Structure formats: structure tokens, C-alpha cells
């Protein structure tokens, strides 16, 4: 009774009219939407009373196509800019649609973001501390022994330091040729002290920021 053959023409005509109102959509998207539409309309038609029509149940094909476009757009492109014009038709209520999705998204994204900031803060503090320690070490121990041109003045070195780090013979030998490249290798603190001047300038600014 409900699947009388007259409905097939009605369904086909309705589907065609909807398709005409989707002409502005990209071909692929339109094809995807229309792929099952006739079958779906057939299901609707099968449950219609004899005296009622598809238009009576579903509204005009133009309205149907409009609603279809909105349903496909609203959530597939989750940008507020796309959502507002699409939902402008129904009235003021539509304006609430865009916030609904951005509101749903953040809780899913927020936790990893939070843990990342923690990591960066930790790294920043660690780096700042390292730079500070290096700077302090340089200021207290390195600076007095390094002249403006970056060479080490071994004459100013405390005797204890010299005795600890190198044997007496080599100490005598290298003090005379101070500033030569050879003097860097046997004595570790020198190379460290010479490395720090390049790191010193950023240290005050970095140590203040955390």
C-alpha cells in the first residue's frame, strides 16, 4: 500500500530538484551527497500516508537542499567563519553554533599543551641556572686571569691552582709563552674560561626572565 509505484516518480523528481539547488557545491561533494539521496527519499516515501506528499513531509526541495548544505558544512569545516553565514538563515540561534565546536575542541587539546609549557619552563629554568653557574664561575675564577683580548695571564693565577692542575716543570715552561695556542690543551679551566665570554652577555637577561 505504501510503496505504490507513483512514489518512485515523486522521489526522482524531488531528488532532481534538490540536486539543482546544490549546483554551487563542488562536484565531488555534490555527488557524495546525492549518492544515497534517492534511496533515502524512498525510505521516507515508503512511510508516507497515501494522502501526504514528500514536499508536505520534507518541505520544498530548495529548503531541503539548503539544510543539507548546512548539515554538511557546519561540522566538517569547523571554522567559526564558515559556520556563521551557513547558520544565518534560521535566525539568531544560529550564532551560537560556532562556539559549540570550538568549545568542544579545547578540552581535548589542552592537556598536552599544558604539559608542554611545563617542559619549556623547566628547560628555561635549567638553561638559566646553567648559564648563571657558568657566569658565576667565570666571574669568580675565570675573569681575573683573562685579559681583554681573551688570552690568559698566568702570572695572576693563584699558585694553588697552577700546582694542582699541572706539574711544576710545565708551569714554568708555559708561563713564559703565555697566550700561545699550545697552552690551552694541558689546562682545562682555561679552555672553559675562554669559552664563557661568548655566553656571558645573554646571561643577565636570561637569568631575570624565569
Amino acid at each position, binding site marked *: 500500500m505504501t510503496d505504490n509505484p507513483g512514489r518512485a516518480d515523486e522521489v526522482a523528481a524531488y531528488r532532481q530538484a534538490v540536486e539543482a539547488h546544490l549546483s554551487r557545491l563542488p562536484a565531488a561533494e555534490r555527488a*557524495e551527497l546525492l549518492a*544515497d539521496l534517492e*534511496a533515502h527519499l524512498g*525510505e521516507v516515501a515508503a512511510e508516507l500516508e497515501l494522502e501526504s506528499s514528500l514536499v508536505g513531509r520534507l518541505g520544498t526541495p530548495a529548503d531541503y537542499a539548503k539544510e543539507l548544505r*548546512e*548539515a554538511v558544512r557546519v561540522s566538517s569545516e569547523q571554522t567559526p567563519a564558515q559556520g556563521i553565514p551557513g547558520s544565518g538563515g534560521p535566525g539568531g540561534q544560529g550564532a*551560537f553554533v560556532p562556539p559549540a565546536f570550538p568549545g*568542544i575542541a579545547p578540552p581535548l587539546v589542552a592537556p598536552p599543551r599544558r604539559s608542554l609549557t611545563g617542559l619549556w619552563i623547566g628547560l628555561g629554568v635549567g638553561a638559566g641556572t646553567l648559564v648563571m653557574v657558568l657566569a658565576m664561575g667565570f666571574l669568580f675564577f675565570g675573569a681575573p686571569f683573562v685579559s681583554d683580548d681573551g688570552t690568559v695571564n698566568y702570572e695572576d693565577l693563584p699558585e694553588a691552582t697552577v700546582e694542582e692542575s699541572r706539574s711544576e716543570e710545565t708551569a714554568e715552561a708555559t708561563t713564559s709563552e703565555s697566550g700561545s695556542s699550545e697552552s690551552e690543551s694541558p689546562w682545562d679551566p682555561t679552555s672553559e674560561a675562554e669559552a664563557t665570554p661568548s655566553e656571558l652577555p645573554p646571561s643577565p637577561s636570561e637569568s631575570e626572565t624565569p
Partner: protein
Amino acid sequence: MLKGLLDIIVLRVLEIEDAYGYEILHRLRGAGFDELGDASVYGTLRRLYKAGYLATYVLPSDSGPHRKYYTLTPEGRGYLKGMHEAWEDVSAKMRKLLDIPEKGRS
């Protein structure tokens, strides 16, 4: 306002029980969602299907053509779960916000 919630609404209906397109609309009307139209439900179904959240199978019906039933895929269940949790979060905050009395009112 409901348009932004179409995904979670349709997925939840199908999580309770598989259904064919027009049946989903019936269930939604029964649940009080009178504003939703058939085109909204159909468009949402196609979009969710394309995204891999839904699968389909066809069953014969007594009163007409075969019906295409929609069912959730594992991806669809995961997507719904995520949205459900997000909704609870937003809902709790909204409830709190809306319950705060206005300052000027006495």
C-alpha cells in the same frame, strides 16, 4: 544551536541502536528534538559515513524498499566518546555560569 551538535546527537542515537535514516529522525522527534529536519540528519549521516565513523548494511523491509542501516565503527565510538567527555565538561561549566546570580539584581 542544535546544528553544532548534530554529530554527537546522531552518533548517540546510533550507539543505542542501529537505525536507518528516517528512523533516526523518528527517534530524535521522540526525544524532543523537533527542530531537526530530515535533511540535517541525512547530511550528517553522509558526512559521518565519509569520515569513517559509520558503516552501513542493508536489510529488507516489509513495507517498501530495502533500508540502509547505519552502525558505529570503532572510530565512531572513539569520536563519540571524546565528544561526550567534551560535552560534559562544557555542560558543567555552562551550568555553573548560568547559575551565578546577576550582581545588580536584588
